[in-house]
């Protein structure tokens, strides 16, 4: 394991500072893009073109009063957003942003990432329950059941790149990805993308926080900086999920030119984000029972098919995949 | 069936019905308050060939005459006709039979009338606070005896 500049990697890039600023500017980027789609202008007063708007929002959240319902379980309500925030960081530590730009690299990083992701639903349920409000509770239940149901196709479809690249390490998967797995196995990419949306609670799967039904779902009763943490956690999960998609299906840092890996990675990430923003602007949301049915009847069978397809490819072109 | 025939049908079949007037396509008929249930059943059962709705139920307060009027309006869509039934309720007997089991639409209208005028609807399942705030509830503000208090000094 390469430990040069480990402090810089953990603290600056691709570690804490990068993710924090990434979240802030992801929010800005999202607000601007969606405003354009809506025919609005978006933030424009704080800083040049509104560049400091999200930072100002963060400052405001920091100094806001904390308001909690009487019935809330305070300890859980205080700690869960922070735990969620920290937990959301972990998958990012194993993402190879460039050939040398990663925090940790070991042989089973793919499994590590998914073990962490699997813990998220319990935290949203805990938060929903500890809020002491019925809207939060219903939102928490919805979040947990949606995420647990979509974990299955998510993990199954993530096996496909592992099979094709013959490795469980994200670094090896990237290196062995001469042709994008998106092209080789589009079914798996589709299933992974949809399940990832459901895990991130993005439209059209924003059911746990459906505004017109549940106010803000399991985040309803959070206030001040705790709300800020939960929002940050949401965006960190979004960065993590889309980064995993880039690594697993879009060739990661592979691209023409020497030492341009990080740039290629970022461009691919930005492409995914644009798609996510556009979906948020124009898609309505599904109903709970509809997506549960979708997961069991469509996504899980499709992910099994995609595994079969990968194994078939492996047997059909053994020479192509032997370079591993 | 035109407006005239419709009027005739009601006058022939409802015992206490008295014709008042016809305005354009609107018939005004006065009936005794015991008959309102008969009328509602009659309209529900006798007009199979036409779509009809209970458009509104409301009351008017007449403190000078010591009575209240209630008006029930049915709209016969295909006849292009409206029929208003007028019922007089004396002050000492502000009670009328509820028609909400025949016409569900009457439920809220009667509830509003009960709250605003204090007319009791016998057989109505859900007479409780509806539109009014706590401080106005029970004062029957649509009655003429309720004056709107406007005090500019207080408003400051």
């Amino acid at each position: 394991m390469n430990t040069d500049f480990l402090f810089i990697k953990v603290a600056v890039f691709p570690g804490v500072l990068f993710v924090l600023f990434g979240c802030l500017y992801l929010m800005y980027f999202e607000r601007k893009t969606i405003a354009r789609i809506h025919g609005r202008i978006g933030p424009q007063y704080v800083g040049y073109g509104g560049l400091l708007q999200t930072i100002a929002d963060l400052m405001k959240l920091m100094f806001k009063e904390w308001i909690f319902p009487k019935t809330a379980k305070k300890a859980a309500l205080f700690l869960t957003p922070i735990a969620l925030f920290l937990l959301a960081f972990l998958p990012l530590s194993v993402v190879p942003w460039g050939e040398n730009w990663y925090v940790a690299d070991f042989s089973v990083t793919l499994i590590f990432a998914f073990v962490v992701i699997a813990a998220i639903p319990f935290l949203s349920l805990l938060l929903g329950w500890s809020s002491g409000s019925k809207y939060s509770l219903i939102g928490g239940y919805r979040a947990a059941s949606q995420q647990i149901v979509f974990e299955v196709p998510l993990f199954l479809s993530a096996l496909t790149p592992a099979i094709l690249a013959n490795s469980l390490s994200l670094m090896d998967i990237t290196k062995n990805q001469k042709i994008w797995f998106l092209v080789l196995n589009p079914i798996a990419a589709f299933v992974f993308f949809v399940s990832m949306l459901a895990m991130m609670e993005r439209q059209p799967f924003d059911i746990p926080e459906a505004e017109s039904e549940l106010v803000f779902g399991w985040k309803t009763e959070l206030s001040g900086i705790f709300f800020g943490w939960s929002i940050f956690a949401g965006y960190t999960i979004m960065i993590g999920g889309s980064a995993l998609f880039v690594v697993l299906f879009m060739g990661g840092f592979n691209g023409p030119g020497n030492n341009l890996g990080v740039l290629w990675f970022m461009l691919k990430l930005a492409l995914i984000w644009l798609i996510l923003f556009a979906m948020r602007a124009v898609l309505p949301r599904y109903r709970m029972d509809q997506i549960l049915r979708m997961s069991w009847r469509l996504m899980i069978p499709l992910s099994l098919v995609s595994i079969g397809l990968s194994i078939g490819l492996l047997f059909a072109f053994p020479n192509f995949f032997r370079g591993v | 069936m035109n407006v005239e025939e419709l009027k005739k049908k009601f006058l022939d079949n409802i015992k206490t019905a008295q014709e008042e007037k016809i305005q354009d396509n609107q018939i005004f008929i006065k009936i005794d308050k015991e008959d309102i249930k008969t009328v509602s059943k009659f309209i529900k059962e006798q007009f199979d060939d036409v779509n009809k709705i209970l458009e509104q139920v409301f009351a008017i307060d007449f403190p000078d005459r010591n009575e209240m009027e209630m008006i029930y309006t049915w709209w016969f869509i295909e006849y292009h006709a409206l029929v208003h039934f007028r019922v007089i309720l004396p002050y000492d007997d502000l009670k009328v039979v509820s028609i909400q089991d025949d016409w569900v639409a009457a439920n809220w209208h009667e509830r509003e009338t009960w709250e605003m005028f204090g007319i009791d609807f016998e057989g109505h399942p859900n007479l409780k606070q509806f539109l009014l705030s706590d401080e106005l509830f029970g004062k029957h503000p649509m009655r003429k005896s309720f004056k709107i208090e406007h005090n500019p000094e207080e408003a400051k």
Partner: protein
Amino acid sequence: MTENKERSSSLVSFSYGPQHPGTHPYSLLLTVDGDRIEKVEAQIGYVHRGLAKQAESRTFIQALPIMERSCFIDSVNHQFGYVMAVEKLAGIEVPERAEYLRVIAAELSRMNSLISWFGGYAAETGINSAFMWAWKDREMFLDLFGHLAGSRVSVMYLTIGGVRWDWNDKLTNLTWEIIDYMEERLKIHKKLVMKNSIFKKRTKGVGVVSKEKALEYAFTGPNLRASGVQGDIRILEPYSVYDHFKFTPKVMTEGDNWARTMIRLHDIETSMEILKQALPEIPEGEYKTKVPLKLRANAGEAYARVELSRGVMGYYIRTVEDKSTKPYRVKIRGPSFSHFQIVEDILVGTHMADIPIIKGSLDVCPADLDR
């Protein structure tokens, strides 16, 4: 017995509204079993202003602006019914030019109301773009009302005996512009919302109101037409000059959210048809009859109805003394009052997530609900 006990313990009841982004100021007391709704009780009255009582202490003309407040979004049509009732009572003739101008303003107001509803409804299903786009379209109407009467939202264009301001060529051009613009925009709206498969999944077959139920609950307007009954009084009992124009409001039989949405979009097209026929034919002449400021009416009663963008609006006005300057009793019959009552019935057995979609499709205006 034990089963019952278990069942009742899984029920959760809470109040949906009035402080809730998905409701206007009204609340639904819900009892839910998981995601299924077991019982609904509507609580309204949060914006009750007693418009009818207020009108009793004002003269006929002073009561005009109040009548508009019964729901701001379709303001011209709300006044339309009131002025017709007063004119009927006082026996005032309205010049034909004024009638045409009234119809034009009423149709513009109807389009404004429908497109605003469409945007709000799309936002309730989650399509935020459609909301922004529709409310951007609404600006066109508000600007036109600004030119027409000086105020954008509460238009106050109609008055007893005619309209308050005359029409001019600039307004004609602006109206034609709106018609052209809306024809394009409607295509875009349909592409964005009505062709979306998720939107179809959320609305088709959801919130079905059968024809019998619609009649029982006194549905009118688009909601009634979505359940298969032609109940548009603009063609059934034409008031004003609606009998001069050819148009056919759409009737569908499904009675679900989808049908109600389609009918409302089609209503915008119907309004454009009427405007296209009315604009070239505005007759010359007076735009209002002179009416004394202290209008007096003899003892009597009048009931006039208009087709709102939501349904039938009725105004009953009663006077008891000859030469009275104030109405003795005004009854405002709002369509939303009848429409909203059905939520206690059709929401039972549906999912939590269907609540905003179903009650949104009924196009209930809380201001009109409480009056």
